[in-house]
């Protein structure tokens, strides 16, 4: 295709806008990292310095090893345990449920679909009062189990819904063909359909991961012991310290908390965008 000069100018303009969007969306991230690498006394300067003059790792040392603070590593491992358990359990349960509503027609199916959508609208935050008391009555307060249970339950409706779109997307004829070739029903499903669901499982896993990794309120209420804090609750303890806030240290802590998510995102991003849209369109 030939391109007219007007079209080229337009494209150049769009590219400029794209660069602007890139700067806007990454600037806070840059500023966080920059602050985290600046000596604490220089953070309190009224001069506008866009580049760090003296780089230091001191703030990371403070955050990681200062005996006066709640340590980072227990919070990190708590977050990892809770998040990974949530992702695994939610993926398995959502997978079963998605297969059920996508591959079978049964009497309570419509009711189940309506329930799945309705539950997504319940604000869990509105339920924290009774959630707290129910967990208390099950003697689960101050356990990792409580958070895993709550997070699995909260991500399930969305993950079932998304996965269902993916199972719908695999034509059932493929399974039937495999069955004619001698596969059992279950065998056909696992040999033919399951491999094609990989992007769907990735998309739902990502969703569960982000939700569980970032959740703040439930973790704040359910676990009050310092050794059971997840990273968001750990990070918040810095804010409420009396006296002058150590912004450089907070930014170091924020960076540490964001790094795993960013890495995770960058690894899978390509699959995810297409995956989520496929789920949404089919839904």
């Amino acid at each position, binding site marked *: 295709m030939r391109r007219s000069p007007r079209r080229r100018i337009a494209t150049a303009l769009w590219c400029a806008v794209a*660069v602007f969007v890139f700067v806007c969306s990454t600037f806070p*991230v840059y500023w966080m990292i920059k602050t985290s690498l600046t000596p604490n006394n220089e953070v309190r300067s009224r001069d506008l310095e866009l580049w760090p003059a003296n780089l230091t790792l001191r703030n990371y040392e403070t955050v990681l090893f200062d005996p006066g603070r709640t340590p980072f590593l227990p919070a990190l491992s708590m977050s990892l345990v809770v998040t990974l358990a949530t992702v695994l359990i939610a993926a398995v349960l959502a997978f079963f449920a998605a297969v059920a509503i996508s591959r079978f027609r049964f009497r309570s199916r419509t009711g189940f679909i309506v329930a799945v959508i309705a539950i997504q609208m319940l604000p869990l935050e509105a339920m924290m009062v009774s959630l707290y008391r129910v967990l208390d009555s099950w003697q689960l307060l101050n356990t990792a189990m409580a958070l895993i249970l709550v997070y699995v339950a909260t991500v399930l409706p969305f993950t079932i819904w998304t996965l269902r779109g993916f199972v719908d997307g695999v034509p059932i004829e493929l399974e039937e063909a495999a069955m004619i070739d001698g596969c059992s029903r279950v065998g056909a499903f696992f040999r033919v359909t399951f491999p094609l669901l990989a992007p769907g499982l990735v998309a739902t896993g990502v969703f569960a991961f982000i939700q569980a990794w970032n959740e703040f309120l439930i973790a704040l209420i359910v676990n009050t012991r310092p050794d059971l804090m997840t990273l968001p609750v750990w990070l918040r303890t810095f804010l409420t310290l009396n006296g002058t806030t150590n912004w450089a240290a907070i930014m170091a802590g924020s960076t540490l908390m964001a790094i795993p998510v960013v890495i995770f995102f960058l690894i899978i991003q390509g699959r995810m965008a297409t995956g989520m849209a496929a789920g949404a369109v089919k839904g």
Partner: protein
Amino acid sequence: MLEVETVVAPARPPRAPRARRRAGALPLLLLAPATAVVAAVIGWPLVQLALLSFQEFGRAQVFGQPAEWVWLDNYIAVLGDGVFWAVLWRTVAFAAVCVVSTMLLGIGLALLMQRLPKPFRILMSVGLLLAWAMPALTATIVWGWMFDTDYGVVNGMLRDVLGLADFDRRSWLIDPLGFFTVATIVIVWGAVPFVAFMVFAGLTQVPEEQMEAAALDGAGPVKRFSAIVLPQLAPILVIATILQLIWDLRVFTQIFALQDIGGIRAETSTLGVYIYQTAISGGDFGTGGALAMITMLVIMLIAFPLMRRMLRSES
């Protein structure tokens, strides 16, 4: 009769009855684990919450005193309280601003991505991805720091780069309008990538032949967008709007953390934060329960028309 039976039988798949019976139990078995977890962790507390909202339930009851049934008293108290209405309108107005800006920006960026040459598209997606990957709490703290009165980069830039002396030592979080400006930026910044990626992925599924055919028939870009692209995008837009609406109406983390940094709680609380203050900090679980029930009702009422659209496309 017998003859008919024998004639018809071979036409039926031979194992159909057995397969159907197996299907009867299997799907329910597959649904059971997910249903059990959701029922226990969401359903049961929901029932408890409904009961709680009709009881007088304060600190004394937490420590074992039997709770007294007061039926609608909690609701009457909440609905008769001017503070509640102020919080409600604030929440709804704030969510409306956030949802509309997020959707418009998200759609705009998706359309932009479509027009970009590949390297620029990748650059932009990486930027959006970074914003998206930031945990809400981290993002709020970072933005709060950027809007810091004395050492914030925003005040610094407005003062030194744009020469606006008004913004020297401006306290953004102290006055409610400034507070919600910052909150809107934090939320929209974090939510736009999700919408942009979803809409962009939807745009890639618009059949090119249809667009070309419409162009040959003389349809301009606006006409092509409204007649071909929009209907194709509709399901995605509906879902994205519902999700944004729910998330923004029940916003908690960003508001709570910004208040930690420097907002005045009484003038900046949204429904989620207000419930927390009443129930968890205030120890009045009964009133908190009534507030929570009302919040759920509000969210459902607002999201209902969109939900119905979605369900219609389902059937």
